[in-house]
């Protein structure tokens, strides 16, 4: 068995892994290796042939594959080595990575630092407890996207979509453009889980109805889907008897949430947040296991890839500092608390000494708010209060904490981020 050593091993060659590796290399660490389970770099972006990527990063609208191509080109220019079709099987707390592929077989890699960038998976039908038969024709939206955009095959012709996550919305338009009839999108919650722009561009522009507070309660068809039964739900998300409508279709696409894929992180003993399903990290995006960093959708599910790249670059820089021994000692960390209306924050802890002059804290809200305030509290004192016209769970929010805040509040133990409606 081959045993190699590398300064930094990046698990995953999607947008997060690429940006992290590039930033690490630019920070002066030469020995960075990317392990990618797919047949090419770029990850799930390769099947995202729609536009809307890169507005923040490049100031222009790119397709997902174009966005990936820019990062791949940069990684190639920097000469960052990568292994494709390579599956990481295990990571120990001592950062020994076991991986396998066709040519190297099972290999062991000792890493100075590990950057977790494995992305996420879609919540499958089984996890949704939808009753009915289990025929062909039920796809998670991303699987359908792969079949259409990469393989060139149609998953079906008459489609119902459950869940208004972004991939579901994108696939509503994509399937329509390919000649399928998308009958409706049902969303369990009273609001969409996707971006506003996707609702407009992918549903409204094609007259596809979005039924909020609706779900699928039954699936018909023993071999292939023949119909689904859609019903309205009450405020407790329970179907309301008598509201059922049977929609004939041959396909049910599911876009009901993304789950950070952290089985590997768990093998290393990384502590996970029950809210995000991703690692609990500090200001350096370092997990509870020293020298193991996390970024992108494996850390928490993002709405825009631009933010993934930004976050991943920070992870790459910090991993570089870690292996070069350039990190200053952090004192007692400040806990970051998700207060009213805030589901979680990334990071969860901040060592002010390492936070730099500006630290971006990302979070999601728990409900839809109009004309509400995003507030930052140090103890009882509100130190930041910013009005937002709309806040929605489908969109990631952020606040920026400055070094001045930490300097003005020495000995701070907790910072709370919360939403205030008046």
């Amino acid at each position, binding site marked *: 068995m081959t045993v190699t050593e590398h300064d930094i091993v990046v698990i995953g060659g999607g947008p997060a892994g690429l940006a992290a590796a590039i930033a690490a290399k630019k920070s002066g660490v030469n020995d960075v290796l990317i392990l990618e389970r797919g047949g090419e770099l770029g990850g799930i972006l390769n099947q995202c042939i729609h536009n809307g990527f890169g507005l923040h990063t490049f100031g222009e609208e790119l397709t997902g594959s174009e966005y990936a191509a820019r990062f791949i080109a940069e990684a190639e220019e920097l000469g960052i080595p990568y292994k494709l079709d390579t599956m990481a099987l295990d990571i120990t707390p001592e950062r020994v990575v076991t991986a396998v592929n066709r040519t190297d077989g099972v290999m062991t890699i000792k890493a100075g630092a590990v950057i977790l960038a494995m992305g996420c998976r879609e919540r499958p039908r089984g996890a949704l407890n939808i009753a009915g038969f289990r025929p062909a024709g039920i796809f998670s939206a991303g699987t359908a996207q792969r079949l259409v955009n990469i393989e060139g095959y149609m998953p*079906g012709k008459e489609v119902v979509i459950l869940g208004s996550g972004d991939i579901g919305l994108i696939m509503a338009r994509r399937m329509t453009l390919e000649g399928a009839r998308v009958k409706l999108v049902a969303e369990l919650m009273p609001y969409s889980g996707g971006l506003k722009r996707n609702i407009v561009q992918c549903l409204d522009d094609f007259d596809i109805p979005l039924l909020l507070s609706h779900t699928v309660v039954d699936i018909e068809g023993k071999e292939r889907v023949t119909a689904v039964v859609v019903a309205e739900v009450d405020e407790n998300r329970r179907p309301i008897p008598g509201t059922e409508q049977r929609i004939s279709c041959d396909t049910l696409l599911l876009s009901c949430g993304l789950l950070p894929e952290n089985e590997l992180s768990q093998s290393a003993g990384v502590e996970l947040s029950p809210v995000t399903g991703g690692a609990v990290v500090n200001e350096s995006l370092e997990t509870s296991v020293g020298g193991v960093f996390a970024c992108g959708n494996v850390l928490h599910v993002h709405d825009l890839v631009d933010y993934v790249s930004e976050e991943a670059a920070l992870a790459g820089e910090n991993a570089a500092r870690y292996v070069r021994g350039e990190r200053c000692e952090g004192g007692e960390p400040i806990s970051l608390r998700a207060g009213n209306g805030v589901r979680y924050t990334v990071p969860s802890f901040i060592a002010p000494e390492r936070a730099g002059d500006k630290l971006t804290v990302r979070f999601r809200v728990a409900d839809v708010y109009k004309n509400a305030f995003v507030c930052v509290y140090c103890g009882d004192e509100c130190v930041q209060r910013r009005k937002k016209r709309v806040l929605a769970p489908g969109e990631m929010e952020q606040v920026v904490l400055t070094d001045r805040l930490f300097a003005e509040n020495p000995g701070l133990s907790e910072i709370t981020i919360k939403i205030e409606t008046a």
Partner: protein
Amino acid sequence: MIYDTIIIGAGVVGCAAARFLSAYLADVLVLEREEDVCAGTSKANSAIIHSGYDAPNGSLKARYNVLGNAMTEKLSRELDFPFERRGSLTVCTDPSRVSVLEELRMRGEKNGVPGLRILDRDEALRLEPNLADGVVAALFAPTAGIVCPFKMTIAFAENACENGAEFRLNTRVTGLYREDGLWRVQTDRGEYTSKTVVNAAGVYADVLNNLVSERKLRITPRRGDYILLDRAVGGYVRHTVFPLPTKLGKGVLVTPTVHGNTIVGPTAVDIEDRESTATTADGINTVLERSSLSIKNLPVRSVITSFAGLRAHEDGGDFVIGEPDDAPGFFNCAGIESPGLSAAPAIGEEVARRIAEKLNLKADPDFKPERRDILDPSKLSTEERNILIKKNPAYGAIVCRCEGVTEGEILEAIRRPLGARSLDAVKRRVRAGMGRCQGGFCSPKVMELISRECGIPLDEVTKCGGASRITVGRTKEG
């Protein structure tokens, strides 16, 4: 061609019968309406080998359960399917009903079940720390076990096949009659003739029986809903944990599987439609609620799928095994509800023996009792695995990330005799698509491998045969 035996139904009982018959010099044909073996009740059950205390004394259920349980360990070695004797706990949550445990223990002893013991709460907790707070005592049955029903059935089928039994899949029996001392089996793919017939037709076994015998049977499909939990919460229970049995069955159990998942179920609802394996919201809720009576804080958020199976409940309440007096040569294996999986080896062996006696079959001197399962590289040492990958790089390519299944395993599943032709058939053999993402990532790749290996266009690859095509054509074909 006149077959010695035609077996109708390639579930676990039909395949077990085929395997034991293939030990004789006999021409055996197995007919199965689905595209794969193990595609009916055998694929949707609790995946356990009961100890045998529950069935009434003197019943066929009791007899074949205890016999089958005793046979399973040796068979699992011969045929290389996973079986673990974990033991079961039947828990009592009502102090006034502890005596029922004693009744079960005595019944079990009469049935010939070894090692039954009644445990107080503390003793039970030592075996199973997550028992519900209300549990006051339990019946421990050390011989109970867990098994992979897919691998067990497929092992029987493959071994039968290797020893000369023929299988016709996608072949539905449409009629059956006796003529000139022979049986004529009509199917949607032509007529077959045999000296004897084994009726292993599951929920349709009464229909077949009633075509040829006046000893009428009536089978009611009894639907059971189940949920399956992620391997990530494996180990939450170590034994099969039952509540006290009721008239409708053994209740909602919680059990580990040989693959590290946790199964919870089943419900028991009598229905009319013999095809209705649809789960219901009520059923899933019932499973979730009832499980909490025996196991506390079960991590039900880790559910990865739910399914339903149909038990073939016969009015008499017992298995119906053997020839009706008015249909010589027609061997029933009917009413095979729980403990059918546990009893299947014994039923198969018994029916094979009776047919051999009737037809004066001789033992096949070339019979190979052993069969090896598909090679699982994760069970090899790293050195062995690397030698394998060097020889065949497909074993270095992980296709199903959740279950760690390699391309090499999937190719073997497709290339074997009775090989997989659908996503579900691959899943049952090597577990690709069985994990937490439920095939979201690997299904396009598995489809491609099936398409390539079987020489069929990708859009003709199915989930489970018949009309279950995954895709409906190329893009932009209208």
